[in-house]
């Protein structure tokens, strides 16, 4: 049943600061927050107000257009504030944690004994549903649709990404429970993308595909495109590998437990390793005292360097993220930088002499390394997108708001992360991921779901 799919296109960016295989459990943070902004296209309707007491699993808000989808408190405690931004947009709902607040008791059951609708009900009520995303578009799945199949990638090839084989090796039982629940949601199959010699190879009731190749081989979208590409009118679902554990725990214990492992990585981290804490924990709780002393500015990213979100010490970790990366900001000028040999600066091309250092890990900062220009160089993007897609022409269709062309050229198959490497290698510094989301948003607006 298993077959190895070799992907040739792509690029592994070797950076300094990969996490050591060592997990430290952090104490329950003082505060956690749920951020509606983590969910693409969500219009939140609040169910709580400041000073309300909530248990873990109590709904904090729901989706105005899909009221059945609840977004629940990751831990119990007191709602201390609802922070709003421009035009009263809800940015974060902050909970002061209280270990004694307890959890909502959900039904505890073996998912194999439940019907699809019962599993769905439970996931919707417990706040697990938002972890399930749909393709096309990479937005939260709609409970009313039947997906063709469900795809899960069990490895991440992004720079400095956590190694889930290590992180989850002791939790295969819970993972299997989560998978069993997911299999109830589709008439098709659940697909698992693994690396060779993976601990996930023994998971049952799934179709396993082994992948090898550089980043973005670990992206679920790339795996779908190489197993069975999405066509117009089809819907598949995806879920992050660690989030399957949340679902597994729910069915095993009847309680929500949003504990997950984050990799704290990057060249600015003193001792990069893994930390176990709860989803929505403050960034400060994970990084305080763990960064290198530096006179220069540091950039903190919730997620990886290609697709993550820039955060500050006052922010909370992203709902879907399993990684925090800290790199130098790089907001400095470099004298005649473009003319220098730059032995220590990574480039996909051989235009700098860093190609002499084969196998070396680099320090990368957030400098653009140039100014934005028109598309000039061709053939770069094609080398890093292992899908049957013409990336430049898809982007041009997006720039032109040409819906027909976007559809024909594969907008249904991609989300930002699948084309993040294009943005990295781009000579003209074009904001590829922003464009991809612009295209997707236009499709949602014009075509509905």
């Amino acid at each position: 049943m298993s077959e190895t799919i070799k992907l040739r296109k792509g690029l592994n960016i070797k950076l300094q600061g990969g996490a050591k295989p060592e997990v430290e459990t952090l104490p329950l943070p003082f505060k956690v927050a749920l951020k509606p902004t983590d969910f693409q296209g969500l219009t939140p309707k609040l169910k709580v107000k400041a000073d309300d007491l909530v248990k873990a699993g109590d709904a904090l808000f729901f989706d105005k257009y899909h009221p059945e989808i609840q977004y629940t408190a990751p831990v119990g405690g007191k709602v201390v504030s609802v922070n709003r931004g421009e035009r009263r947009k809800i940015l974060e709902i902050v909970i002061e944690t209280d270990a004694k607040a307890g959890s909502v008791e959900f039904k505890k059951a073996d998912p194999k004994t439940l019907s699809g609708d019962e599993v769905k009900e439970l996931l919707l009520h417990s706040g697990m549903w938002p972890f399930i995303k749909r393709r096309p578009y990479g937005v939260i799945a709609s409970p009313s649709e039947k997906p063709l199949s469900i795809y899960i990638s069990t490895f991440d090839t992004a720079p400095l990404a956590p190694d889930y084989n290590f992180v989850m090796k002791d939790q295969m039982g819970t993972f299997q429970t989560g998978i069993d629940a997911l299999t109830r949601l589709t008439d098709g199959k659940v697909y698992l993308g693994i690396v060779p010699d993976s601990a996930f190879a023994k998971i049952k009731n799934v179709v396993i595909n082994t992948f090898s190749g550089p980043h973005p081989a670990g992206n679920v979208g790339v795996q779908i495109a190489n197993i069975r590409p999405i066509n117009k009118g089809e819907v598949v679902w995806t879920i992050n590998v660690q989030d399957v554990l949340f679902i597994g725990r729910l069915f095993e214990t009847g309680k929500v437990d949003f504990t997950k492992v984050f990799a704290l990585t990057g060249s600015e981290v003193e001792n990069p390793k893994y930390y176990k804490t709860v989803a929505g924990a403050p960034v400060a709780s994970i990084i305080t005292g763990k960064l290198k002393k530096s006179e220069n500015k540091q950039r903190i990213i919730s997620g990886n360097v290609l697709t993550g979100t820039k955060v500050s010490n006052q922010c909370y970790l992203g709902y879907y993220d399993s990684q925090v990366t800290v790199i130098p900001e790089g907001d400095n000028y470099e004298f005649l930088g473009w003319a220098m040999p730059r032995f220590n600066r990574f480039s996909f091309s051989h235009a700098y002499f860093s190609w002499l250092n084969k196998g070396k890990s680099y320090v990368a900062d957030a400098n653009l390394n140039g100014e934005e220009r028109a598309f000039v160089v061709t053939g770069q993007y094609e080398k890093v997108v292992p899908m049957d897609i013409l990336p430049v022409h898809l982007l041009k269709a997006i720039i032109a708001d040409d819906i027909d062309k976007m559809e024909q050229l594969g907008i249904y198959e991609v989300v930002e992360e699948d084309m993040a490497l294009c943005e990295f290698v781009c000579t003209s510094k074009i904001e590829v991921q922003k464009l991809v989301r612009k295209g997707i948003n236009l499709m949602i607006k014009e075509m509905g779901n």
Partner: protein
Amino acid sequence: MKSLRNFLDKKKPLFQPGGKLSKFGSTFGAFETFLFTPNHTSKSGSHIHDTIDLKRTMTVVIIALLPTLLFGSWNIGYQNGLAFGVERSIIENFIFGFLKVLPIMIVSYGVGLGIEFIVAQIRGHEVNEGFLVTGILIPLIMPVNIPLWMVALATAFAVIFGKEIFGGTGYNVMNVALIARAFLFFAYPGEMSGDLVWVYDLAGNKPVDGFSGATPLAYAAQNASSEIASFKDMFLGFIPGSIGETSTLAVLIGAAVLIFTGIGSWKIMLATVLGTLLMGGICNLFPANEYMSIPAYTHLVMGGFAFGAVFMATDPVTASSTEKGKWIYGFMIGILVVLIRIFNPAYPEGMMLAILLMNVWAPLIDYFVIESHIKRRLKRAKIKGNA
């Protein structure tokens, strides 16, 4: 460098909108980013970016062009020496030639960059790097005797009508340097063709007996194939011709740089060579005249073929943008070169016209490549959808 940086930081507000010298904002920006890679950091999407930028890309192309410039300079001295029976050392030949090329380069860069700066300022854009390469390409494809005012005129024409009216670097349809050459070729054919323009000072002076100044292509067009220089001489470049085009070896060094750095498309280069060999081979099979019977591979070392295939056809803005399209585009250039050279005696050199023609065709090639890509995707949709 700190003091220079401080100086720039101090003067910067003057050039920003509202500043006294905001009229020269683009000019200031161009010099500032030339001196210092900017401190811009990523605002959306990927937090890290490849070290490469357009400045570096253009720099690599210029480095790749240096061998042809150095050899071309030497060859000017060498050809002049041959013509008038003057003995010079290698260095003397080079200096002799370089002093002839330098004014052409200065005029080309001066006029071209001048226009770029003015246009950027009018549009409120940054100055684009595109002309850095065009400015050196133009001298390299001119005959050494070209009057400087013609260089200025052609450069201005090419930059304004070949590029800026389309929107600047990245938006032009045809290769800017070739437009400059084509402009002169049709407007002043006397200065751009014939046997007297390729060797310095040949016009109006009497060379030593037996020296004609004709290029191998001219001999070939006259069906005088016995007069064509040896393959070795043509490959190494000891022949008359445009300044930078004569040495295939020097061009190959440049090609190696472009391919290794990943900046030039090897697909286009290879496809062009294959197209030429195929069309030349077909001519060899039906040798109706002497030109048709010269071995197909000779085309690769004659005239501007190698220079055009490596430095002109590969211009990413004007070539096909799809990878499959690049094969077709290059192949068609190769075929057209031979056709124009052999069957159109009015134009002994076919490379310029072949590339310009295919520049115009490149979007059409892309269109068909994309359409076939879409069709294939739709087919996939149907098969899977029914299964």
